[in-house]
């Protein structure tokens, strides 16, 4: 791949014979045809470079209509994964076989973290959430795990991390004596880099294990907002804090979290109303001595719809919860079933036939149930754990990491940023004057 060299303000070079120049101009001078050409790029990196050619090209690639079309054709790709365990520095495990352009993007992200780490107070990084190029991180004390800072890192940008206000109370589960569960997450589109939400589910309201209520605190534009609270709600079954999800899922202004083995707790952030959704009858959350409900996960869908990923034996089932059906029959729809025996056939590494391995789902499945993370532990041979990335649509599998005696419970998908934020270098005047100056 050629390096980019921005030249001086170069004059048009009459290098082409006039007839050829005229034919090219006829095609590339036509906005519709130029758009047809640009749609065929598969990566946003190409769009950015194309935008540097001339103002007219920038105008075309930065128009909302074109960007929407491009996104639909080429959804943002997964670049790699960040394990969530407390680390000295967020560690990116890049996807295998990325195109060269995206390898360059991941190197930018790695360089970003080695740069920012020099200015961060001493402590460990705990990734709380990642959305569209923004990473919400708690810096915790190495010894007592209390919080030192909450920051938003933006590995796609050169700007240093932004420090945001936080409550010390939220330190970690251990300190709140099980009185509430706390979830912190970024706005769905990643936000402005200075905003996040904090949802607390308060258990045993008034001492009754059946009653809960939720509070929502938000930090917007770097400023902490008022706390809002829901009315208490009586649950059909007691809230179970050790339940599967450490993260919950924000999806179209609604927040969902597994609350016990029968239902999912929902919170409408706009109306501050709590509700619950029963799991499909077929779904059985498994709680063994080794793992708490590590056979289910949630994934964002369109609008407030979401997916339930369910691992049973050697099978993964994908259920869609469609909120548009509001009749009291089931909103669940089984949309896909994947046999792991077939998927992992090529790997032929694990002995699925015996009790020699355990499989579980790792948290943070991709949006729209595009991919899931699976962990397979070899319990007989050498007690090794291998984390896999499984693309549900294509059934393609790749290894994310391998470790001994060290389990990961959560991997944060690192997605390509979208859309590229083009600087406004062109004003109205330019547009009139130089609408076709590109040619």
């Amino acid at each position, binding site marked *: 791949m050629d390096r980019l060299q921005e030249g001086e303000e170069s004059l048009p070079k009459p290098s082409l014979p006039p007839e050829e120049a005229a034919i090219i101009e006829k095609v590339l001078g036509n906005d519709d045809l130029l758009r047809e050409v640009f749609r065929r790029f598969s990566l946003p990196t190409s769009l*950015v470079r194309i935008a540097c050619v001339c103002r007219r090209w920038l105008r075309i690639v930065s128009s909302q209509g074109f960007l929407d079309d491009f996104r639909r054709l080429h959804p943002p790709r997964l670049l790699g994964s960040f394990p969530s365990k407390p680390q000295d520095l967020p560690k990116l495990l890049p996807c295998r076989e990325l195109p060269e352009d995206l390898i360059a993007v991941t190197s*930018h992200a790695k360089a970003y973290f080695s740069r920012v780490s020099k200015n961060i107070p001493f402590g460990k990084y705990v990734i709380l959430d990642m959305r569209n190029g923004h990473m919400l991180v708690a810096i915790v004390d190495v010894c007592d795990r209390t919080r030192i800072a909450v920051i938003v890192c933006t590995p796609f940008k050169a700007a240093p991390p932004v420090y945001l206000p936080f409550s010390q109370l939220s330190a970690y589960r251990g300190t709140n004596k099980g009185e509430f569960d706390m979830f912190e997450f970024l706005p769905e589109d990643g936000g402005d880099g200075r905003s996040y939400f904090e949802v607390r589910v308060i258990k045993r309201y008034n001492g009754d294990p059946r009653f809960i209520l939720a509070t929502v605190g938000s930090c917007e534009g770097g400023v902490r907002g008022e706390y809002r609270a829901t009315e208490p709600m009586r649950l059909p079954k007691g809230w179970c804090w050790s339940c599967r999800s450490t993260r919950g899922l924000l999806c179209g202004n609604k927040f969902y979290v597994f609350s016990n083995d029968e239902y999912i707790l929902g919170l409408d952030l706009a109306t501050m109303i709590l509700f619950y959704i029963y799991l499909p009858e077929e779904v059985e959350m498994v709680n063994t001595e080794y793992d708490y409900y590590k056979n289910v996960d949630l994934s964002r869908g369109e609008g407030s719809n979401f997916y339930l990923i369910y691992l049973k034996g050697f099978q993964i089932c994908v259920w869609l919860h469609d909120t548009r059906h509001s009749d009291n029959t089931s909103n669940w729809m089984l949309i896909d079933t994947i046999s792991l025996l077939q998927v992992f056939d090529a790997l032929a590494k694990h002995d699925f036939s015996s009790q020699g391995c355990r499989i579980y789902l790792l948290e943070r499945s991709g949006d729209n149930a595009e991919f899931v993370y699976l962990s397979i532990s070899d319990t007989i041979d050498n007690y090794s754990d291998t984390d896999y990335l499984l693309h549900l649509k294509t059934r393609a599998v790749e290894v994310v990491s391998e470790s001994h005696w060290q389990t990961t419970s959560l991997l944060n998908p690192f997605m390509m940023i979208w859309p590229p934020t083009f600087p406004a*270098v062109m004003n109205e005047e330019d547009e009139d004057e130089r609408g076709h100056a590109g040619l």
Partner: protein
Amino acid sequence: MEVDKGKGEAEETRKVAEADRDTVTLKSSDGKLFEVSKEAAARLSTVLAGMIAGGSIDDNGTDLKQIGSEALENVVDYCNKHANSIPSAALISSSISFNTAPFKEPEEWERKFVDRLSHDALFDLVEAANFLGMERLLDVTCHKISEMMKGKSPDQIREVFNIKNDYTKEELEEIRQELAWAFYDD
């Protein structure tokens, strides 16, 4: 593209006669005649399909005044090749994308077909494909042009496609800084 459908009933008999032929004759702007499979023409070009259905095909050569003989020859060549090619099973299964397949990648023969074209001929063919409403040919030719741009620096693109840089040095620097992730580190 508007197609004249308001033909009188007198045309009917001629249409029937035409329907018996399995080729149509096309005439370029410079008067050259080309024969192409009717089935392929109707399948690949919405405009030709409309003309065939509307009976506005001329046995002595349907005038396509906007298309030169070189481009029309390529159009006809493409149609005939397409008529003979069997979509490969490998292609269908390899068009992998996480969501819906955005574009069907050009097939091997389509790739070869556009690769042998000169710049002039390629751009001419884009125009002709656009004029004739040939979606697939437009796909393949635009794909080729995008390949020509891929991996090139903005300077190189301007040179190859004869485009004037109307940015100031500062503006380009601003884009580069704001979107540094899209560029390779020096």
